[in-house]
């Protein structure tokens, strides 16, 4: 574990939990053949809260995220966004409900340009009515908007231009684009799966800053990371997964980095995952 430059444990922030959670996940189970990848997993994140999701490799974190957005289909379980159950379980429905994910593999199309990737599935089109239904792209507006967004979120393209395919970009730039896309479209919930895995110190700081910014805008954030310093720095609570199960949660302000390791190995007790949900 590499320590990030400024490890400041999150201050205990007051989070308004009187309303409905931004995202509530109940009793999700997903098996692949005889293997239970996710077993009765539950969690909740409120608007303006950052929840860490930690656990060993293979604990089921990424699979749980995929179940939540309907990228894979769990055998059982329910997902609520802002208190309303998400019945149609597909990435399309999840995005329409305001959930965005930064996937570990970034989910970028290498052969398409930067603007096309930022707007993938959300393209701006020209005209209205019958003409609008043909779906003619408004490339100029998308480029302008993309330039604005990348500038705002501090994604430095260096020598690359917006019309370059993303396979021309560095790992950090690609990650920056994936994160920017999630931030732009994630109205209610943004889930980041190892968003800083391939990043240098400065870019990592930038991503953590963007997470805090999302939080301050009232978005519920789920932050998956193996870097405990990052988790302590940016998360209000952590949910711990082990062998597909959500063991429970703890407030980061009340625990230490060493405690997190204790939670992951199961040595230390946690609040039950469904408590207070």
């Amino acid at each position, binding site marked *: 574990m590499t320590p990030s430059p400024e490890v400041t444990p999150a201050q205990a922030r007051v989070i308004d939990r009187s309303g409905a959670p931004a995202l509530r996940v109940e009793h999700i189970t997903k098996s692949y053949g005889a293997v239970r990848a996710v077993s009765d997993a539950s969690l909740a994140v409120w608007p303006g809260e950052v929840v860490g999701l930690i656990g060993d490799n293979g604990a089921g974190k990424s699979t749980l995220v995929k179940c939540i*957005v309907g*990228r894979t289909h769990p055998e059982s379980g329910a997902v609520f966004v802002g208190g309303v159950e998400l019945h149609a379980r*597909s*990435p*399309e*429905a*999840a*995005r*329409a409900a305001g959930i965005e*994910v930064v*996937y570990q*593999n*970034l*989910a*970028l*199309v*290498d*052969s*398409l340009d930067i603007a*096309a990737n930022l707007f*993938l*599935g959300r*393209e701006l*089109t020209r005209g209205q009515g019958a003409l609008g239904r*043909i*779906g*003619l*792209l408004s*490339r100029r507006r998308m480029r302008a908007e993309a*330039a604005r967004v*990348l*500038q705002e979120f501090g994604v*430095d*393209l*260096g*020598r*690359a*231009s*917006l019309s370059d395919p993303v396979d021309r970009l560095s790992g950090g730039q690609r990650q920056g684009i994936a994160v920017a896309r999630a931030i732009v479209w994630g109205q209610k919930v943004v889930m980041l799966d190892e968003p800083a895995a391939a990043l240098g110190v400065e870019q990592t700081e930038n991503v953590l800053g963007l997470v805090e910014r999302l939080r301050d805008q009232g978005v519920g954030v789920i932050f998956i990371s193996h870097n405990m310093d990052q988790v302590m720095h940016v998360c209000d609570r952590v949910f711990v997964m082990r062998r597909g199960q959500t063991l429970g949660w703890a407030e980061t302000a009340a625990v230490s980095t060493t405690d997190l390791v204790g939670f992951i190995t199961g040595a230390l007790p946690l609040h039950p995952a469904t408590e207070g949900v």
Partner: protein
Amino acid sequence: MVAGAERKLGPSEMWDLVQRRGRPLVPYLGFLLIFAVFGITEHSKGFTSGTNLRSIVEQNASIGVMAMTYVFVLSAGEIDLSIGATVALVALVSAVVLEHHGVLLGVLAGLGAGLSVGLINGLLTVLLRVPSFLITLGMTSVVGGIGEAMTNLTSIGVPNQHFDNVFGSGTVAGIPSLFIWLIVVLVIAHVALKGSRFGRHILAVGGNRDAALSMGLRVKALRVSALVISSLGATLAGLLYAGRLQGAVYTLGSTDLLTVIAAAIIGGTSLFGGRGSVPGALVGALLLGMLQEGLVLFGLTVPDQMIAEGLVVIVAVSISLRERAE
């Protein structure tokens, strides 16, 4: 910060830029080069005469149409081996129906047959989760068999003036019908691929299917559409063959598959999805047609031409593969 175009580029970066920006021009430059070579060496044999050039375009109209629609299926990361058999089926069905029920019903019947092949290709590929390569390979045999059985291996004439005008050697306002079809398909297909949401999603599915799924694109519907579009191209190609030859026979289109794939790849479409160019495919088709015509004038026999075309395909595909590896 964002554009960064103001910085100075080193020589290697300049060369990189030239290569990147220049790559899409390669098929057009190749076309001009071959045209120049034959134009000079075979000028006395009438290569550059208006009649010869027009006949090159007309003889390759069907290939051109199929190459342009094939861009969609390749861009979507699929392949369709059944276009040759579909060409023959459509031509035969149209000819048979046209004989007794008139032009309109004949064309509609052909369209129905071609559309059905495309839908079956697409739905079987998606629902059975079998690669389109295998589904369309099987369908080649099925469709070909139907075509042969339908007519008992005989050819059927299409002695119809209207049909000939629209799909064959006729002209509209002085412009040959086949030119008009090529231009119509060029414009529609190009705008659909590069200027519409649909085309962008096709490219996304072929470029990275996993990302397309994650971003909520309707991947199954897009894959079906791609296979339907290549069948529609084969359908129009079948009608154009029937019009130009004023008849249909079960062998129509049987040798076209390789030429169509080669034309698309020469034109800058990736064999592995994610990248495609409709104008490039048309230029690729005309380039191959011109090459063939030029070789005929050089005195090459049909087997010689086959060898030459095969070599061109191998070169084009290996270039495409090398680009992917990079």
